[in-house]
């Protein structure tokens, strides 16, 4: 069995003149929970749709479970569970009808007990119509019909969008239970980084269509750090620090966001710059992500006038 479940090579996509994805190179190993992160419009959904053959790449290729993404066979699709953005399902169907419809495509693989258990867990009835469900309930149904065929690979596009904290927690726990089964792989995109932090093994960060990070979660967490330096005298103008992402300064203090910079390099620079002391500022994944993807001169949303 191949260790690489999804592989993208120089995957590029133009929408008219807009470059949505620029030479994406990605490998998703088997058994991994892979988080795809990026700001709005970064290209996450585009990447997922390209991998599933819903879009056609301008250049580049991708394979999913060893099959070219542009020619995914029904047999391969049967092994992939896909949760669409917004959990779009047939509104006129009842939950039971939807399950019956879904089951027809997975003969011999559909786990009715799992489906019923999930419905019980989510307190949903088969007689309810999809259009009468809330966003959260629809997400639960979507998860249930996607997980019940026991897919080998689960691809989810922003699955917790619009869900409250309790439902998100349930959703994630379901994901973790699934990954407990041997050989299952999950690729998901999300804006809610606390969720990513809970479940992901590896992450990839896409910024304006370009892959900027592809590593283990703990490696990312360890690599991105914010350090505050205090100076007795003037704050140095030129900062010559390897791995410098951003800097913020006031009269006496300098805040540097760094990536991949070692402790020795920081100490050495602090000494050479004449800093009196320096300390790390705690950041959660969300803070790190924002710093990692922020442009150099960030515009403020609101410009308040000083009175």
């Amino acid at each position, binding site marked *: 069995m191949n260790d690489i479940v999804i592989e993208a090579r120089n995957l590029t996509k133009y929408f008219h003149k807009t470059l949505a994805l620029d030479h994406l190179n990605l490998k998703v190993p088997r058994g991994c929970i892979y988080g795809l992160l990026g700001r709005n419009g970064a290209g996450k959904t585009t990447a997922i749709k390209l991998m*599933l053959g*819903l879009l*056609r790449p301008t250049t580049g290729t991708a394979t999913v479970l060893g099959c070219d993404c542009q020619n995914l066979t*029904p*047999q391969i699709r049967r092994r992939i569970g896909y949760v669409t*953005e917004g959990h*779009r399902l047939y509104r006129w169907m009842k939950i039971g009808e939807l399950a*019956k419809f879904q089951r*027809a*495509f997975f003969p011999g693989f559909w786990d009715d007990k799992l489906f019923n258990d999930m419905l019980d867990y989510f307190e949903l009835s088969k007689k309810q119509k999809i259009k009468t469900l809330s966003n959260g309930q629809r997400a639960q149904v979507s998860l249930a019909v996607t997980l019940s065929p026991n897919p080998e690979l689960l691809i989810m596009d922003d699955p917790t969008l619009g869900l409250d904290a309790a439902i998100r927690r349930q959703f994630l726990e379901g994901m973790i239970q699934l990954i407990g089964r041997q050989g299952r792989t999950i690729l998901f995109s999300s804006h809610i980084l606390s969720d990513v932090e809970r479940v992901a093994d590896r992450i990839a960060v896409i910024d304006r269509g370009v892959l900027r990070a592809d590593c283990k979660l703990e490696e990312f967490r360890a690599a991105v750090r914010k350090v505050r330096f205090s100076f007795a005298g003037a704050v140095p103008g030129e900062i010559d620090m390897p791995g410098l992402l951003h800097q913020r300064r006031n009269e006496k203090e300098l805040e540097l966001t760094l990536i991949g910079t070692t402790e020795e390099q920081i100490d050495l620079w602090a000494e050479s710059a004449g800093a009196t002391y320096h300390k790390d500022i705690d950041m959660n994944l969300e803070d790190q992500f924002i710093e990692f993807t922020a442009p150099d001169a960030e515009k403020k949303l609101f410009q308040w006038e000083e009175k």
Partner: protein
Amino acid sequence: MRFLALLKKELREALPWLLLAAFILAFCSAIFIGEYTRWRRDFDEPATMSPRSPVRMDTFREELQLRDIGTLLLYTSCGLGLVLAVRQFLVPSFLKTWAFTIHRSTSRTTILLGKFTAAIIALILSCGIIWTLFFWYASKPGLFPMPLRQRTFAEGWIIITFGLVMYFGTVLSALSTARWYTTKMFGLAFAGCTFMLLLLQVSLALCLVMIIISLVILVSQIIHTFLNREF
């Protein structure tokens, strides 16, 4: 099994429109037959003959408004074709369910075939059967002074088949990613052109050939577009 599941789903979505079309046709046909019954009582009144040219060119002009049935059949079959195409191909774009549909463990061809089969069944069930029943009833001896012509029955089916052309024309327009004010409506426009050309035909066989050619032109584009389209 997959195809049947798709077909069932499409038929279920088409059901309200199918029933509406059948109801309209059946209701209006019943009114026409009922109207004729009233005319029949006037049948024995003296008929006026023109001294110069008594040969009549229109058949059943006075006895039965068969031409109105034909017009109704045309509007119903075209309307049904249009609505089905919109329901099957345009509504999923608005509701964003294409991704769910395409990501079935079946080929796109099967998905397309399911939709086409459902549309053909809907047209046959709603328009075809009602027309056949109407024709069978109207052909009963003693109901009309001249039995309906077999050719009229065939023409009715040609009209129903044209509803299929309208369906495929609308499908092509719905699948087109062009802007509506450029070439998006060309599928529909081509179906309209086919109708205009049909009006010039006398031979049923030639009519059928023209419809088949139009269908080949439309369906080949639809298949190619659907298999290559981005969703």
